[in-house]
């Protein structure tokens, strides 16, 4: 959840997660089929796909322009023209939800992608080269992980100023650390493996070793971590929106919508319920997907289930 420290946003029972053995990842066994066979994972995938399509096709699906203000038609209930009613400025809630998906999901996915790449790069460097590079990078990671992330986000966005761009920067500046730590752990354990030792003995170059032998070991846990991370990013975005620091109006972003609906909590509870539901559904979708991916990619965890 949003108020928790960074490390708890980790998929806790992930291979490579804190305190769990790190040499779990074998070759990939028909992961897609396994994934689809798990009903929860399949529904997660379905949720993600549907929300993704809603975001992409929002301009076609939305009945109204999400930013058009109609001060005389405010706080209207559900009607043919406004299926989910209107907000405090008479804007169409359904249209705002649909366009909001673009921001909430788009930013979360993009930030996760960037963070994943940065985290892998740092983790590879630290794990592969060890020594001073490792020590320095991991101390930086330690420092970043020593704070509740929400407060760090607030501090960074507070300093840079509000807005989507700065929120994006804050998410990235802070979230790469946990990836780096996980990846480093995987790299270190991969290096100890016989075939890597053998490759070193055969004179493989460092770069080749990294790309050919070590990186593949890192990919599937990171994919799992990333898919679970998207949910965390969506929640973080929502929390920043709650403090008014997220997307700037009239951009329809789910967290911002919730923030503005607070005053109408009792009289118009749907104003908060709809974006709240949208956020929860999206996070749930990504969590189910991530959970399923872990099972699909990690035979041992599947066996355990």
């Amino acid at each position, binding site marked *: 959840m949003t108020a928790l420290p960074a490390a708890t946003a980790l998929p806790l029972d992930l291979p490579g997660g804190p305190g769990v053995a790190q040499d779990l990842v074998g070759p990939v066994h028909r992961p897609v089929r396994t994934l689809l066979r798990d009903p929860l994972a399949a529904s997660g995938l379905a949720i993600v796909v549907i929300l993704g399509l809603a975001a992409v096709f929002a301009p076609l699906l939305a009945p109204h322009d999400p930013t058009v203000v109609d*001060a005389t038609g*405010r706080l209207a209930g559900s009607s043919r023209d406004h299926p989910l009613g209107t907000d405090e400025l008479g804007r169409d809630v359904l249209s705002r939800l649909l366009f909001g998906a673009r921001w909430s999901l788009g930013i979360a996915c993009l930030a996760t992608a960037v963070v994943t790449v940065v985290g892998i790069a740092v983790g590879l460097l630290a794990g592969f080269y060890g020594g001073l590079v490792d020590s320095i990078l991991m101390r930086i990671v330690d420092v970043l992980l020593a704070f509740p992330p929400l407060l760090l986000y607030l501090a960074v966005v507070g300093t840079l*100023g509000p807005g989507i761009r700065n929120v994006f920067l804050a998410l990235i500046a802070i979230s790469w650390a946990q990836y780096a730590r996980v990846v480093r752990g995987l790299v270190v354990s991969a290096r100890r493996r016989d075939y890597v030792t053998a490759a070193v003995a055969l004179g493989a170059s460092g770069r080749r070793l990294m790309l050919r032998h070590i990186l593949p070991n890192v990919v599937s846990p990171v994919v799992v971590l990333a898919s679970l991370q998207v949910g965390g990013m969506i929640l973080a975005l929502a929390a920043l929106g709650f403090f008014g620091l997220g997307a*700037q109006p009239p951009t329809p972003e789910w967290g911002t919508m919730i923030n*503005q609906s607070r*005053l109408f909590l009792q009289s118009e509870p749907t104003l908060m319920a709809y974006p709240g539901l949208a956020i929860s559904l999206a996070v749930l979708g990504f969590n189910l997907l991530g959970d399923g991916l872990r099972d699909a990619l990690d035979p041992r965890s599947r066996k355990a289930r």
Partner: protein
Amino acid sequence: MSIRPAHLTSRRSRALTTCLVLGLAATACGGGGGSSGGSAEPAAKQELRVGVAADPWIDDEGDRKRRPNYPLNADVCETLVRLGTDYSLEPMVAKSWELVGDNTYRFTLDKARTFSDGSPVTAEAVKASIDYTVAKPSIGFSFLGPESAKVVDDQTVDVTPTKPNLRLVEQINHPTYAVLPPGEDPLNDPKPTCTGPFQVADYAAQQQLVVTRNDNYWGEKPKLDKITFRFFPDDATRLLALQNGEVDLVTDVPQGVLSTLEGRPGTKIEKSPVGSVLMAYVARRTDAGVPKLLDDVRLRRAVAASIDTKTFVGGVLAGNAEKVSTVAPPAILGDFADMVKGVPYDKAEAGRLLDEAGWTRQGEGVRTKDGAPLEVSIIFSRVDLSNVEFVQAQLRAVGIDAKIKQLDAGAYRKALDTGDYDLDISQPNQNDANPAFLMALRWYSQATSKNAKIIAPGAGTKFDDLITQTLSAKDDTTLRRTAAEAMHELVDVEVGGIPLSGNYRIYAMNDKVRGVQIHPSGTNQRWASAFMAK
């Protein structure tokens, strides 16, 4: 006690009528609240719990405030003169005052007016209070100096500003000038001794302030035994706490939610007359003096003409405000309020002005000039976001791309100081009786705030000269006329401030709360007449 004339809401008028018809005690009527029926007798244990926003002393703007009467209206400390709900001046700690000489006011005290410990208010105490105010908290525009206050005799004090300032009496009803016993330091003492109807019993930072009845009060004794002010930083929980009966009254309810509270059983809404004006301050230049986009008066006028304030007041604010053309409550200009016309809503005129200034558009898009888009940034403080979004939508409709920047207190303050914005939407309160107070504070060339450089028409302009004249206006009529002329210059000619709505102070309360007379200013709320019905 004054009865507010034109501002009564229908609910209030009904209550008042009932009250008069039943011929109840004059005090209950004078309270002006929702007194009605036979249950208007005070209940046995009189406690009022008030939900207010965040603890004003853990203030987000870094100003050290004089507690406990400012900025929270706890009715603990009093000033020499008080501000009536119609912005007239009434005696308070001083029995009377008169101008002696060119620039000296003589205040006469009264032995019967005592501090809460029973000791009388002496001329020494008044002098000590003024000296304290000069040395410690912010004193604004009164030109008081360390030598200003002189004891004439035990019951008489002369006050002479360092520069000619005939507005002194209108200014010193601000709580910053509270009368204290010598040696009192309310900036550092949360339980100061004062002269008001209540005294501080307990203060817990960010939790609550408890005041109890001052049994030695020199004036009409308060009906309440105790008032607990509880701090709720979250607007939503503050309203829910009222709903749940954890507080009896919440102050400063946003207009947008009123419709959702009205008609709820057990809850009533009361409003003051207009006490503040929501407006857009226009940034004309940066702190370095470089002209900004809106230095062009055609653009400022276009911005003003593009905002449909009638729809704003009737729609976004759901009618819980008044359409005004002044930048201060119209009542304070008296008969001269009509001199300020306001820029009328006229989209076509806005478009024409923008075209004329070279900002043209194809179809419904954003206007451009030499390929650059017409962009303005809006900052705001303590204003509901929906109000700002409405302005944004109105500007977009005429082809101005308005970007809203939601800044926290620190960033907002910095933007004001540097001029890194175009429109600043906020809602200043009229907190004293000087009709030129706000104009002098914000737009006058002699104003001390860094922001004045950014928004002021500038020295030598007609507006500026008129403000200087208000400082030496000898009588009320001249003062109000000069202030109205200045405001006309500011609003209609310079378009340096764009009024959006005249706002009431709105309290929502449990219907057992009676006799609350809501003061339109942000600093003069009194609680002595309030009580709880059985």
